[in-house]
């Protein structure tokens, strides 16, 4: 019985050690941005962003395939440097933020392509619709910061079709897809 108990303790400590080795990071919102880019009539690019979000990720350099990410976005924080447009984007033609105040991304897997690049798979929920979404990810850097912490940052891009998320306001043939440009910096917990 005692032996069994010791085995259990060792096993659980091993398990703990294992889960700790995949470092957990809190997203530093001061150094993270969630931007989007969409064609305006096909003549120029319009950039916008979400100002309010939070999230965390875990990443193990020895086992990048086990990386996990979850991010939650406050849809009402959409900002495109034009108050009347932002009002329209928050309304029911687009994000309908009263009904769908949050967009979320929860990873389901990570394909490591080596040298800090990979494809992050996950479920993206926007406008009440959840769809699988893959994000091309590249690690920008990682290391100690000057204030005693440890940080790791990634950049990622992906595209999505608005109608896949039941956003069907017609912006014209050049503007059916949105590119998301995500820059994430995490502080190790």
């Amino acid at each position: 019985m005692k032996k069994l108990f010791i085995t259990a303790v060792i096993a659980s400590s091993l398990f703990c050690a294992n889960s700790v080795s995949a470092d957990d990071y809190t997203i530093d919102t001061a150094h993270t941005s969630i931007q989007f880019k969409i064609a305006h009539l096909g003549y120029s690019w319009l950039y916008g962003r979400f100002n309010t979000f939070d999230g965390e990720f875990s990443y193990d350099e020895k086992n990048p395939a086990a990386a996990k990410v979850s991010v939650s976005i406050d849809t009402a924080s959409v900002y495109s440097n034009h108050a009347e447009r932002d009002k329209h984007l928050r309304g029911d033609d687009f994000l309908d933020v009263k009904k769908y105040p949050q967009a979320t991304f929860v990873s389901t897997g990570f394909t490591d392509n080596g040298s800090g690049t990979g494809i992050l798979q996950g479920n993206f929920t926007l406008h009440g619709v959840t769809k699988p979404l893959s994000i091309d990810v590249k690690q920008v850097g990682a290391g100690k910061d000057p204030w005693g912490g440890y940080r790791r940052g990634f950049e990622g891009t992906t595209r999505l079709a608005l109608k896949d998320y039941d956003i069907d306001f017609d912006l014209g043939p050049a503007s059916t897809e949105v590119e998301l440009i995500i820059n994430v910096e995490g502080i190790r917990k």
Partner: protein
Amino acid sequence: MVIQVRNTDQSWGVISIGIHWLVAIIVIGLFGLGLWMTSLSYYDAWYTQGPYVHKSIGVLLFALMVVRLLWRLVNTPTMPLPNHATWEKTVAHVVHLALYVLLFATMISGYLISTADGREIEVFHWFEVPAFTLGIEQQADIAGTIHFYLAVSLTSLVVLHAAGALKHHFLDKDDTLKRMLRTN
């Protein structure tokens, strides 16, 4: 024949009558334009033109209403007709007051939509109204909701006001409406 410019206690002058009907046409027009323009598709020619005209006319209406108030202050107000019951005078007075208040409130809330991020309002490529920044979060959205309900309330009161005038004209067969159509 001399055109009566100023009001007397018995009849409205040509300026009061002119401004009254001009404001009436503009208010009804802006209400229709406002509802219509917000329903347009992105590629509609009026998608950008509609709001531009709506805002430009709105600013000019504000100026017209200021002139109207000043004119009212320096003029004798025309008295209600003696055959009107006390309750009719009271209701009419309250509705008139509410029309003025709602008119200004609607115009101010509209201004607060367009100027929410510090942008000016361009009036017919003629002049610009500067923004007065309040820095309220989601100001455009809040002001937009208020603007809509104020405009609906205003239009409802316009209907009540018109119904009153028609009641006096067709049921009481008095000069209430005629006084607003011609000077003495």
